[in-house]
């Protein structure tokens, strides 16, 4: 069953001052799929993710051409509310980034920003922690510091923190880098659950992870989207020689 496009990227170019980080990207992300963006370092993967929720706005001297549509509306439209956009498109970074406060306050951070009252917070937080498969481990110590959690727990906390905002799209930038295989497995399991409700764009930390969790994938090299397609096709019958070389380990 063909699904509607959640995000449409059209002729998108991105520049850090004079350095071009993305070249003519054209890509559609479908609703409620896991799309993996993979490729060697400095290929523009993180830049693309951060362009999607406009975190790149924070970088001085950056500019872009082209358009990114979320549900058909240009996210770079000056009339759009930036804070609202970022609540709809949540992001988890490549290293766990708990804020130095309690587990509860970390998850409550986003909802509190939008003025959620104390009363409904408990419910939101339990739901978010359950969705991130962390609730059972932390339910008895919600008010201890988040910095005391293990790396894998911290990363799932960051996922819960994003889920507490009930976004529509999740951007995950190598969420398993720096994690052991057990933590990685539990996060991948979490992703499988989340797919039912969210559109997920994932930068996997290796090709195997992409093939384990993603529905479709795109190969990025030096700021260009070389090819995209269903995961089974990309990893078994890549159309482009460069994709094949990367997947088979000739470079990267």
């Amino acid at each position, binding site marked *: 069953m063909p699904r509607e496009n959640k995000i449409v990227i059209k002729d998108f170019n991105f520049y850090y001052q004079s350095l071009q980080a993305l070249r003519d990207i054209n890509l559609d992300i479908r609703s409620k799929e896991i799309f993996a963006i993979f490729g060697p370092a400095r290929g523009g993967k993180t830049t693309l993710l951060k362009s999607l*929720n406009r*975190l790149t706005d*924070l970088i*001085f001297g950056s500019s872009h051409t082209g358009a990114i549509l979320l549900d058909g509306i240009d996210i770079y439209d000056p009339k759009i509310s930036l*804070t*609202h956009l*970022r*609540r709809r498109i*949540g*992001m988890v*970074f490549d*290293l766990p*980034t708990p*804020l*130095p*406060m*309690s587990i509860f306050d970390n998850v409550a*951070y*986003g909802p*509190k*920003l*939008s003025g959620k009252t104390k009363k409904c917070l408990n419910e939101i937080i339990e739901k978010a922690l359950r969705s991130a498969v962390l609730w059972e481990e932390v339910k008895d110590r919600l008010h201890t*510091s988040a*910095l*005391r959690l293990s790396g894998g727990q911290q990363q799932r906390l*960051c996922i819960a*923190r*994003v889920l507490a*905002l009930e976004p529509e799209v999740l951007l995950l930038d190598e969420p398993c880098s720096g994690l052991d295989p057990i933590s990685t497995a539990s996060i991948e399991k979490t992703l499988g659950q989340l797919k039912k409700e969210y559109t997920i764009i994932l930068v996997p930390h290796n090709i195997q992870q992409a093939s384990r969790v993603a529905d479709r994938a795109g190969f990025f090299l030096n700021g260009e989207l070389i090819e995209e397609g269903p995961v089974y096709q990309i990893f078994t019958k890549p159309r482009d020689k460069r994709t094949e070389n990367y997947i088979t380990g000739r470079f990267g």
Partner: protein
Amino acid sequence: MRVNRNRYLTQSIAKIFIWISALSTIGVMILILFQILSKGLPILSLQFFLDSPRSMGREGGIFTTIIGTFALILVAILFSVPLGVGTAVFLREYTRESRISRIIRFGTDCLAGVPSIIFGLFGFAFFVIFLNMGWSILSGGLTLAAMNLPVIISTTEEAIKAIPYSYREVSYSLGGTKWQTVTRAVLPSALPGIFTGIILEVGRSIGETASVILTAGSSLVMPNSLFSPIRTMSVHFYILAREGLSMDMAYGTGAALILLVLMINTTAHWLLNRYIRHRV
């Protein structure tokens, strides 16, 4: 072999030197404390703290000067902390490194090097005379605030600089505005640094005499408003000793001053530790 022996020689000389410097520092500190406390502690009593000075301070206690000290410091903190923290936030979060931020930073660095008596003179000319506030808690407090502004700005700036970029990125990515990011993700983590600045300010303000006499006066009458003149403990100590009124009372005031500073520092550290423990 020779080289080896030389190395060991250097090593032991260095060790001796480092021990001597550490011990003599502690020694000097103990000497000063002993000098003041041995002459001052016998004077101290509950009466000494709670009685107002009589006959120019030759008799009675130091109650009004304690009140004066606290009032002055409170006013100084009340004005300098919001202004200083605001400036630091502006420099670190609201502007990029530019001509304006460099000029402001150069200005505060210069101010930090200005002798305190110059601030006293400024306070006297501006607050006391020009704004017609007279010798008062307000004039003195504002003068001390101006004097300590550079300290608050630079300690706050250092504290903000040390906060990981990721805290800001997380806050923005969760839909935070700039103001929310500054007040909820940045400043709470910078609070220990800001606190250090406040403690430095308190220490400097407590010890200040010349500029305080010029701006807050040296009245021994109990103040009843922000426009009342006051005498701080340091000024009291100075006048008692300088005018030869009573060395005993002077040492008593000195001992009380040391105890006060000790109390403020311990309380501040206790509060700070409690705060940090809740976060990590």
